[in-house]
């Protein structure tokens, strides 16, 4: 527990469990710098079940405020932004094949350590900064499997169908009419 005492009150700890903080010294903010806070978060990508190859975690980018800072994921999915001033910020995730909602994160000077994050797409609040994709994105049309119906519905199919009707049904009708 002694290690907690070292943390400056200025440090903003977002959602990371306590044990993780102790384990991860990367979060340490050196004394003397009070202007910036650190945002820590994690990205959880479910194992791909649908289409395509699973996304490589090394190709995921996390973007703060539309490009002001860009960071990458560590192998365990964690990321951090350093030296972030107090205010309301926007975090976006760019991962090919997944749709992530941007997240608003409040970094407040008055209540250090208080977590306030919400998905902007559906206004859902987050109790911890664990970002999950809202949905998978598949960029291609899926070819319809072959079916007789699609063949029949195509212009050629209609033509042949009409022809069949004329050839085989019309004479029958005509016969009926004639009699």
């Amino acid at each position, binding site marked *: 527990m002694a290690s907690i005492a070292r943390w400056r009150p200025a440090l903003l700890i977002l959602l990371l469990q306590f044990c993780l903080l102790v384990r991860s010294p990367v979060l340490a903010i050196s004394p003397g710098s009070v202007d910036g806070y650190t945002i820590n978060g994690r990205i959880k990508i479910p194992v791909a079940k649908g289409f395509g190859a699973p996304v490589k975690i*090394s190709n995921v980018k996390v973007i703060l405020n539309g490009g002001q800072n860009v960071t990458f994921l560590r192998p365990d999915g964690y990321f951090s932004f350093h030296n972030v001033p107090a205010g309301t910020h926007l975090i*976006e995730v760019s991962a090919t094949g997944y749709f992530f909602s941007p997240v608003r994160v409040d970094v407040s000077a008055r209540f250090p350590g208080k977590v306030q994050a919400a998905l902007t797409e559906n206004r859902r609040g987050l109790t911890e900064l664990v970002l999950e994709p809202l949905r998978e994105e598949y960029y291609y*049309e899926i070819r319809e499997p072959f079916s007789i119906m699609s063949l029949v519905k195509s212009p*050629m199919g209609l033509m042949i169908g009409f022809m069949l009707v004329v050839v085989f049904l019309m004479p029958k009708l005509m016969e009926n009419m004639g009699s």
Partner: protein
Amino acid sequence: MHKNPSSSPSRSVYLVTLIDETRREKKTLGKDFSSAMATMLRVFLLLLSLLSLTAPAFSLYEDQVGLADWHQKYIGKVKDAVFHTQKTGRKRVVVSTEENVIASLDLRHGEIFWRHVLGPNDAIDGIDIAMGKYVITLSSEGSILRAWNLPDGQMVWESFLQGPYSSKSSLLVPASLRVDKDNVILAFGKGCIHAISAIHGDTLWKKDLEADSFEIQYMIQASDSDVIHLVGFVGSSQFDSYTIDAKSGELIKHDSAAIPGGYSGQAALVSSNTLVVMDSAGSTVTTISFHDGKVTFNQTPVSTLIEDFVGKAIISASKLEGLFSVKTGTLTLFVRVTVEGKLEVVNKVDYATAVSDLLAISEDRQAFAFVHSRSTDIDLTVKLGADWNHDLLKESVKMDQERGSVKKVFINNYIRTDRSHGFRALIVMEDHSLLLVQQGAIVWSREDALASVIDVKTSELPVEKKGVSVAKVEETLFEWLQGHVLKLKGTLMLASPDDMAAIQALRLKASGKSKMTRDHNGFRKLLIVLTKAGKIFALHTGDGRIIWSRLLNSLRQSATCEAPTGLNLFPWHVPHHHALDENPSVLVVSRCGPSDDALGLLSFVDTYTGKELSSASLDHSVVQVIPLPFMDSTEQRLHLLIDASGQAHLYPKTSDALSIFRPELSNVYWYSVEAETGIIKGYALKEKASDNYSFDTRSIWSIVFPSESEKIIKSSARKSNEVVHTQAKVIADQDAMFKYISKNLLFVATVAPKASGDIGSSTPEESWLIVYLIDTITGRILQRMTHHGAQGPVEAVVSENWVIYHYFNLRAHRYEMSVIEIYDQSRADNKDVWKLILGKHNLTSPVSSYSRPEVMTRSQSYFFTHSVKSIAVTSTAKGITSKQLLIGTVGDQVLALDKRFLDPRRSVNPTQAEKEEGIIPLADSLPIIPQSYVTHALKVEGLRGIETVPAKLESTTLIFAYGVDLFFTRFAPSRTYDSLTEDFSYALLLLTIVALVAAIFITWILSEKKELRDKWR
């Protein structure tokens, strides 16, 4: 600028009844039918419009990738390179570039294994390899240290380094130093030195040097000891040396001394305790030795090293054993520093020589290389560090083209089969290309200038000459049929993987997309690309290959032009359709420096051959270039160049051009947007020419924004070559609205000065965004709109009669996109048929840019999920096809979004008539449909711009997106309604025809028989 040609009165009458949208035709049809029929049709149309909504206009099957699009990956100009060590066995090199890219390249072919594009503010200062498995990068002025896994590029850890002030940074990865069984990385940045554990990025210790403005030059590990030296300068006259214990971070010693004669920026390290610098005058070499707390200086004038020396000499920053190189105006000198501190020249070579760092080739031997280029040859010399007289390697390599001088060289050695040392050199050339030279030949080269595209224009390809038949590729009927049977199999999903590959190959062959002639549909063109390196490329739109490339002589650094930078490309000479023997050319406008008042340069380049036809150094600056809509008798386009003092210069400087231009003098208007001062000004030309081809200008209007409440952050105008097909828009209830179509529409966005920073730096209460629509001829403000609680960055696109812009809404904390459409009210009365008949309409009154018609604007806003890097709009040949927006998102993808989603007439519950018209029910946010990404699963890393070019086929537009990567595709905003798709199954059509013919015969026979039977009866 001139009278609006797209609104000639006679056409407008016609347009009242004839509107572009295809839906209208359907509706007139519906009117004529009986009421029952009409309702049926309505339902059908409704279904149709709903269907067309759910299915995005752009969608691609996975097997169609690469048919109409291509994607090229680049890295940019290489700053630094580190080779894998021999032990790891893999043949790779890790490079960092000026586009903030870190990449691992294959040494055999130059392909990219992995690559990361860091943020735009995250420039890489140093890279190295630690423990043989991590790539370490120091970026953002020494504040971010990252470790990447060498084989796959996964980031392993990231460490944030803080310090009191910003300074130069330096990275040192000592091979043998260990602290508590941990490998240590030493990083200097922001006035502090940090020791970082290489395994997990923890800070082991940190030492603040407590010296203001100490600029580090070198961080040296004294041979195999635990002591490191930091040498550098404070200001331009004080030398500082720090000795630090690498295990604990304790400061052992700090020496400081004033340098006699000052210091001019660069320093060479000749041994672990000797530094060589040039004094501020550039005429005296100062040797600084720092032994055991003693700092001694030794001065040698350059004139003693070389006779007839004039001007300034520069020391190149390098680490060579006992040697350093000095560049004078014409030569590069290699100077040896003797043990006593005396200097002696060992060799003189050509000026444009690049020198590598030392490379340890065995326990006690070190080698270095120097390279210089002679037009199409490069000479590579590798020497042993201590022994000047002996060459390890000396070879001359032929290049396939002019690449300018050598900028950087990195060497690496390998052991040949006969156990001798072989060397390979990675060379960075002036044109930003990267070459690997090994065994006297260029193994591979990369054209990395294409990572820094400045401007793009297209050029038509030559017309196919008659007589040269294309029919050679045509196959026999059997082959043709076979191909189509294969395709049919593909459509019926009966094809095996082998068949699929055959189909793909067939498709590529059939499209003939990489031919060097003009095609009927206008898909094949040349993309003329100007890059930061001063090199021009012509890329084929079919497959993206480089047709020619040229390093422009006028864009190379020279004595008269210190830092030439390319500005723009303009089509200069576009021969008309029948002039087959003439080649088109482009005008390259550039200037001799980054500031506005630097002198201009013009260069004319043939777009078929890439030859520089001529070039001119101007005696004035270039601030703005206005292509005029006139041609001279040789079909050269007239251009007006505006310089910093407000003078206008006409090009080409011929009397012919002048006689064409003089009558139009009073019709030329332009504007300037001065973002710093917050002023927009409109100008016109004075009648009297100050000399033959220069004209004085007068300011005719100006709009001054109050600097305490508004700051200009974006201005955007219509593309001058955009075609608008119709002026009227038919809305529900057989009503029409007239678009306000003016080429002189300017969109300007201003924000509160407090809110001009990044998101998160201001509150909603103190920020606002104000947008203006300004007529640039009269300076009239057509519309002013305020968005409270909004801020930039703003991206905008203006087209036809609308503008769409993207900004950040601080209250909702989401991005928003707004649309403003402008309609001309003065023409609204013309809808009355009786007035038309009685002639009481104003349709015959000329449309003038000076008139002030009553306008009406409509506007609506929607949420949009992503940040946006760039917005463009599709453009087609005749402007009939409906428009789609192309949005470059923060994830470096390009999203196509139908303009109908940004229609101010959208409402929550559209009426039946409005639904038929295609109005989409209002939703608060714009949809993002994954299938409508034109870049599909690809990314255009570092996206900076999107260019659209119309094809000849009305339905199709060509899209070129550039950044660090290049991407090109063909796009049909309303599907390809005017041609059959490539998927069209001719075989099925043939089959149907055969079946029909067979059926005709069968029925004929049957009827014959029946007739016969009837006759017998």
